[in-house]
């Protein structure tokens, strides 16, 4: 008899085997002692053909499990007691032991149960049969007749059932179901009922066999009906238990968690749900890449590549089924555990909003497929929808978490930017105010040269502040997309040579322009393009004090043109190349812009390039130096040859910094530039406001 209790955790099979082997040894010992005792009491075996026949009968009824349920407990039993009753009357105590041991062994082997289980059941049945045989002999059953004999047989059957139940309870207690007393008592009434039914059928058989060989056969339909009915009840109970587990598994998996954790939990719950040894749960992540977690006795871990791929393929091949891994096509088997049965559920194609790209769930079982296979596949199929849901929720959760992190990051960046701006404004202001204060403090003690020097410092730093403020405002405008792009057809070669001409003096004539004539006209915002190129060339002039500065333009495709600004200076290390486009980055860690820049130039270049729908990259010049590559579209997408935006709208721009007469343009008063001597490095460069235009830069250049 086998008890079925509520259990959610499968104990480690290895540990259970060791414990069961201990029980086998115990039972074998008990049997041996009892057999010796019987033999000493002149116990007999009985006719060999009857032993074999009854053993076969024993095995036959052993293959016909019936189900009995009482309250929350249930048990599966067989009619072996009936055979035992007949054996008691037909054979001696030794014959009974032999019949039971043989019959049970054949039955379990036919069911393809593991060896250790076969051994255990044969040993426990034979020891119980030995007890029954001895009990029957002790109460004098062999010599009794009529009702007395039946009473003796019932006593022996009760002894058999008691031993069997005790042994089963012990085995369950050892496998961690609870203490022996609990297990024994909770199902004692069931066991008594089962053995009473079985024993009475045996007695009925015995009574009917007195009427000839046909009469016992009359019981067969009755037994068949009982067997079928209890089978249905057992299936229903199993189904109910599975759905109870399904609901509790679903309830346990509703917390907020990351994607991998969700997959691992789904796999763990699925493994328990259909009592497998391992389980894999895979789902596509946000990029659409399949990711999987596997759970077994050692806990969850990332599924190996082969297992992941095979599981996904398995779902396409056998979703909703229970299949033997060894029966699968060779291509599907790689990575899957050989010799096991796989319960598969899921879909690899999106079929519902809750499944963005599908889900694959496979549970691997040590046991051969049985009649419950379809039911297991069904309940796993029900669970897989929940698994898909929690995987999706986990993705959403990760996305929300990431958005939050991004916000926090942006906030931190804003703080850092503000601190950097404060720092950048304070540095030139310190020199400017310091110079002015010095001029005032030491008025009488400074010679003309020194005075001139301090005026120059004050002016230069003032200009630097001006440029910084302009660029900051431009940064804000560009970042808030308040800068309008006004594309118009321009001759690229003309723009390039104009910029080069403007900067020729500053770069000490090192600029060389080459423009493929095939480029001709491009449609872009010439002012912004000029700004970017001016800054790139100024940058090259600053950081590459010697060597040519080459500006090359060439088409790279029908749609795009590449403009390269090549210098032969020290270049930028590969790991720093992305950083040069960040705001206020000084690669050497200094605070002062020793080269007179604002720390925003290249950042603005990149941002304005983006407005122009261009990309700006930094690479290495062959032989050393930096090469900036501006990849510009031939035509800006916002260009409308007919119905262009009116000019006024572009001159001021919403919230633009270039309003005529705006505060920052106030430096071009007559007399203002008087201080700009030949030595002044007048800071106005490419990114001055539109109203002052490039002429302002030209005027105050070195």
């Amino acid at each position, binding site marked *: 008899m086998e008890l079925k209790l509520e259990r959610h955790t499968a104990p480690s099979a290895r540990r259970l085997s060791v414990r069961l082997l201990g029980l086998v040894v115990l039972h074998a010992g008990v049997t041996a002692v009892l057999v010796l005792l019987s033999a000493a009491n002149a116990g007999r075996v009985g006719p060999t053909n009857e032993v074999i026949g009854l053993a076969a009968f024993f095995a036959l009824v052993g293959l016909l499990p019936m189900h009995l349920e009482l309250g929350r407990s249930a048990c599966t039993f067989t009619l072996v007691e009936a055979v035992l009753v007949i054996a008691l009357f037909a054979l001696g105590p030794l014959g009974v032991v032999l019949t039971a041991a043989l019959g049970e062994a054949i039955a379990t082997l036919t069911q393809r149960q593991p060896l250790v289980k076969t051994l255990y059941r044969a040993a426990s049945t034979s020891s119980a049969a030995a007890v029954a045989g001895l009990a029957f002999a002790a109460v004098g059953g062999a010599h009794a007749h009529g009702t007395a004999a039946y009473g003796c047989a019932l006593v022996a059957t009760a002894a058999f059932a008691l031993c069997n139940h005790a042994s089963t309870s012990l085995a369950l207690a050892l496998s961690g179901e609870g203490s022996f007393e609990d297990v024994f008592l909770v199902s004692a009434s069931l066991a008594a009922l089962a053995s009473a039914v079985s024993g009475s059928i045996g007695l009925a058989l015995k009574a009917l066999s007195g009427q000839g060989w046909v009469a016992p056969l009359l019981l067969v339909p009755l037994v068949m009906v009982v067997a079928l009915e209890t089978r249905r009840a057992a299936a229903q109970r199993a189904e109910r238990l599975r759905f109870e587990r399904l609901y509790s598994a679903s309830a346990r998996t509703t917390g907020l968690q990351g994607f991998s954790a969700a997959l691992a939990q789904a796999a763990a719950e699925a493994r328990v749900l259909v009592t497998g040894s391992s389980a894999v749960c895979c789902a596509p992540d946000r990029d659409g890449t399949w990711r999987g977690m596997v759970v077994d006795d050692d806990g969850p871990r990332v599924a190996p590549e082969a297992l992941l791929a095979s599981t996904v393929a398995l779902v396409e091949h056998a979703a909703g089924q229970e299949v033997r891994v060894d029966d699968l096509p060779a291509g599907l088997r790689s990575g899957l555990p050989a010799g096991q049965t796989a319960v598969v559920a899921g879909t690899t194609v999106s079929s519902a909003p809750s499944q963005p790209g599908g889900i694959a769930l496979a549970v691997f079982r040590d046991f051969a497929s049985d009649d419950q296979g379809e039911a297991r596949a069904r309940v796993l199929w029900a669970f897989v929808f929940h698994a898909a849901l929690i995987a999706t929720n986990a993705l959403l959760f990760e996305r929300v978490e990431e958005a939050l992190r991004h916000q926090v990051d942006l906030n931190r960046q804003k703080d850092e930017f503000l*601190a950097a701006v*404060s*720092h*950048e404004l*304070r*540095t030139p*202001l*310190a*020199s*400017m*105010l*310091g*110079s002015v*204060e*010095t001029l005032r*403090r*030491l008025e009488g*003690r*400074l010679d003309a040269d*020194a005075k001139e*020097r*301090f005026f120059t*410092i004050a002016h*230069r*730093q003032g200009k630097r502040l001006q440029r910084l403020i302009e660029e900051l405002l431009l940064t804000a405008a560009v970042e808030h997309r308040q800068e309008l792009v006004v594309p118009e057809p321009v001759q690229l070669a003309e723009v390039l040579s104009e910029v080069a001409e403007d900067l020729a003096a500053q770069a000490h004539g090192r600029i060389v322009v080459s423009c493929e004539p095939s480029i001709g006209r491009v449609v872009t915002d010439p002012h912004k393009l000029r700004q970017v190129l001016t800054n790139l060339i100024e940058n090259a002039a600053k950081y590459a004090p010697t060597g040519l500065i080459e500006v090359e333009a060439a088409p790279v495709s029908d749609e795009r043109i590449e403009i390269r600004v090549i210098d032969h200076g020290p270049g930028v290390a590969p790991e720093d190349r992305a950083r040069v486009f960040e705001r206020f980055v*000084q690669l*050497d*860690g*200094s*605070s*002062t812009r*020793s080269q007179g820049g604002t720390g925003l130039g290249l950042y603005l270049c990149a941002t304005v390039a983006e407005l122009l729908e261009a990309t700006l990259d930094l690479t290495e010049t062959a032989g050393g130096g930096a090469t900036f590559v501006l990849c510009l579209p031939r035509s800006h997408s916002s260009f409308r040859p007919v119905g262009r935006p009116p000019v006024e709208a572009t001159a001021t721009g919403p919230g633009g910094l270039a309003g005529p007469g705006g505060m920052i343009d106030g430096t071009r008063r007559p007399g203002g530039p008087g201080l700009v001597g030949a030595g002044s490095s007048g800071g106005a460069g490419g990114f001055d406001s539109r109203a002052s235009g490039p002429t302002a830069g030209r005027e105050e250049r070195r």
Partner: protein
Amino acid sequence: MTRVLLVDDDPSVCEVLAANLEAEGYEVDTVGDGPAGWDRIVETRPDLVVLDWMLPGRSGIDLLADLRRHPRTKDLPVVLLSAKARDAEIWEGWQAGANYYLTKPFQIEQLLYYLELLAAESTPRPA
């Protein structure tokens, strides 16, 4: 004559400071980056140091912490003069062992006053 070392990578600030300090009778030496600042301090043993924070090569705050770790320089009076003006940064500057922390833009009179105090404290210094 009290010798002051200016460590700042901004030549304008150095020039402004040098003019004012020399007018007050200090002997002024100037150096433009972190490692050179360390070398100059070790070589010339100035009486006072005016130190910027953000310097090429090695930051002023690191330099200051190193000065405070060495027995021979741990009492060297240092005024940190930096454009870093957030509370946390000023606190960090004091923590590193600055005798005074001045934020840019600064009042020349204030710096001169601090240097005067520090010079007065350290002149009768034994050893």
